[in-house]
């Protein structure tokens, strides 16, 4: 019981915590006050409880596929938000301080949605055990250990990002955001496959012997890179598609935004 609950909680917490630390580091990068994070987390947690409590009703929608479809939709929305966040970060890289309110809202919404989604799964899992007194301790301890590991990795990851040189920090964060976003596309595709909205093909490969998904490293790779031990062709295509689309758009934004050194020169001559 303990191990199962560690794995489940760790998976959800780690995903949200890594996204949170990347966005928090970027919030600090652009000089935004970190107050948005509290609002987003509070909103996400309340939302996850509400979502978890009404999971029965949600599941019954769309011919019993409501939960999968709603989750997939949320993943796609978070993907879109991360894309906008990435572009706004590039736009503000030389301290233009433009569209900061929009950036803040996108970050808050992304964190709130991620917390809502991951939190609701933990909530549903924990609620299922509330009457099983004998395994409750084990489940709670497992959840605590999972959450502890997840948050600790998130916190250390945040300090790692914040400790990077300013210029490198943005690039690293953008790469990570792109990878996380691509992982979201993959998960959303899998959810749609489960809902039979997309044809589920045979797995393209199976690397569970090499890197099991349930191991800590596997979990980390899942949260950061969207690692899946046995993905279908469609899932892999969605991953690569999401990755390429975001990378391309961010690259184009980067090219279009005047560089820092260029601005300095023009200021000198102004």
């Amino acid at each position, binding site marked *: *019981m*303990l*191990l199962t609950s*560690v794995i489940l909680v760790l998976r959800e917490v780690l995903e949200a915590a890594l996204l949170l630390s990347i966005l928090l580091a970027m919030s600090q990068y652009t000089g935004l006050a970190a107050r948005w994070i509290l609002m987003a987390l509070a909103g996400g947690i309340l939302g996850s409880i509400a979502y978890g409590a009404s999971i029965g009703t949600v599941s019954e929608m769309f011919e019993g596929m409501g939960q999968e479809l709603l989750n997939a939709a949320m993943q796609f929305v978070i993907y879109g938000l991360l894309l906008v966040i990435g572009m706004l970060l590039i736009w503000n890289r030389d301290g233009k301080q433009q569209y900061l309110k929009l950036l803040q809202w996108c970050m808050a919404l992304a964190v709130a949605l991620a917390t809502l989604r991951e939190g609701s799964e933990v909530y549903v899992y924990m609620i299922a055990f509330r009457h099983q007194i*004998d*395994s409750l*301790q*084990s489940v709670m*301890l497992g959840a*605590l*250990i999972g959450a*502890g*590991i997840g*948050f*600790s*990795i998130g*916190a*250390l990851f945040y*300090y790692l990002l*914040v400790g990077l040189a300013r210029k490198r920090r943005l690039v690293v964060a953008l790469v990570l955001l792109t990878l996380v976003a691509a992982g979201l596309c993959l998960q959303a595709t899998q959810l749609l496959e489960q809902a039979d909205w997309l044809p589920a093909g045979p797995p393209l490969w199976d690397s569970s012997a090499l890197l099991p998904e349930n191991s*800590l490293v596997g979990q980390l790779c899942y949260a950061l890179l969207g690692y899946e031990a046995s993905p279908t062709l469609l899932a892999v295509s969605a991953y690569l598609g999401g990755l390429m689309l975001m990378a391309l758009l961010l690259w184009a934004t980067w090219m279009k935004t005047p560089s820092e050194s260029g601005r300095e020169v023009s200021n000198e001559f102004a």
Partner: protein
Amino acid sequence: MKSIRIFLLIALLSTITLVNFIAALHGYRASMAEAERLFDRQVIGTALLLAAIPVNERAPLVVKENDQLAFQVWSRDGKLLMRSDNAPTDPIGDASDGFAESNFSGFRWRVYSHAADDGRSIRVAERVDLRFRLADEVVLQSVVPILLGLPVAGLLIWLVIGRGLASLRQLTGELRRKRAEDLTPLALASPPEELLPLVDSTNALLERLQASFDRERRFSADAAHELRTPIAAIQVHADNLANSLEHSGAEAPDSLWQLQQSIERMAHLVEQMLNLFRMTPEHYPARFESIDLHRMARDVVAKLYPAFARREQEIELRGQAAFIQGDRFALVLLLQNLLNNACKYTPEGGRITVAVNQREKCVELEVCDSGPGIPADARERVFERFYRVGGDRHESRVPGCGLGLSIVHHIAELHRARITLGTSPLGNAQLPGLMVTVCLPLPATDVPGRNAKVRLETNSEKNQDESRRA
């Protein structure tokens, strides 16, 4: 990073949590495996014990057992010789020796099959869920302390970091308490190795700053002092020249008059520079005595009266006798500077008032004129050395060196007095006038000190009120 303490707390706590929890997980896994092996050994032991018991082959024996364990003993020809009451009459598990898992009586069981030497087959089964729960309970007891220890670790880390950062806090406190003019070295009792370079370089910087201040002060004072004699000589020669021209009946050229004016201005400048450096609070050997400020103001007004009369200005002294503790020479200089300024900047025929009044906490000296005044945005700067409102192209075209108010400032600092600049009630729309208020603390409430700090106030609301009144 906003706070070193919070950073260290979070980073350390995260590291400890991560390492401890992963270790706890591994410990849990290993302990569970060990517990499984232990249970298995127990089951094997039970099977061996059963194999050693001789059994009556005619009637099957049913033995009462607890929920956790079940067993069967089969004869070589497949007859049930003995079983626990919770075991079925059908064979459990498979016939091969060793462990297997099977379902019966509504539970999942771990079954050990053992073939005895006499050909009997012994099957001992243990409920998987109970086994697991038992192991889980035992192992969890070793995990719980790690989790419970975490808040304690957090608290200890918080306190330890606080202790570790104490010297840093002490240093910042020391720096914060330091006043602008205080250039004495930082005194930190046994600073840690990491802070030593910072303390040392700060002290070296303070020392260099003090030395350069001293040098500058000494140079200016020496230069002014050295200039005094040649200027006096030039003054005498110019006067002699004027006298001899007068005696010879020739008319003195205009440039001679201008030369005399320039020499006078230069002598004044040098005198003011010397006064300024003499009045530096750190260096002035003040001798405080009880002084009637009103009487002193009367004497100074009387002394300067010819200057006011020359410009046909009306000067008025108000108030009553008010005693303070102060340095006579310095206060006379303060009054002279304020009155000279008032005389210089008030147009001919203008009005000037001097008032000395005893207030609740201080003796208030107020000098008002009907000159051009000082704009609100320049009031902070007029106390700087050589600063003149509007620079060299001073609107009043009054010659001056820009040191008068600096001297006043030094003297006020010496007496812990508060200076306020405002608009004069004597002014009008074109010439708002200047009101200088100096609040000198009463001797009973405040003993004047040499390291006193002066407070400058430019109370704009008050000024607006006054300009409305004016």
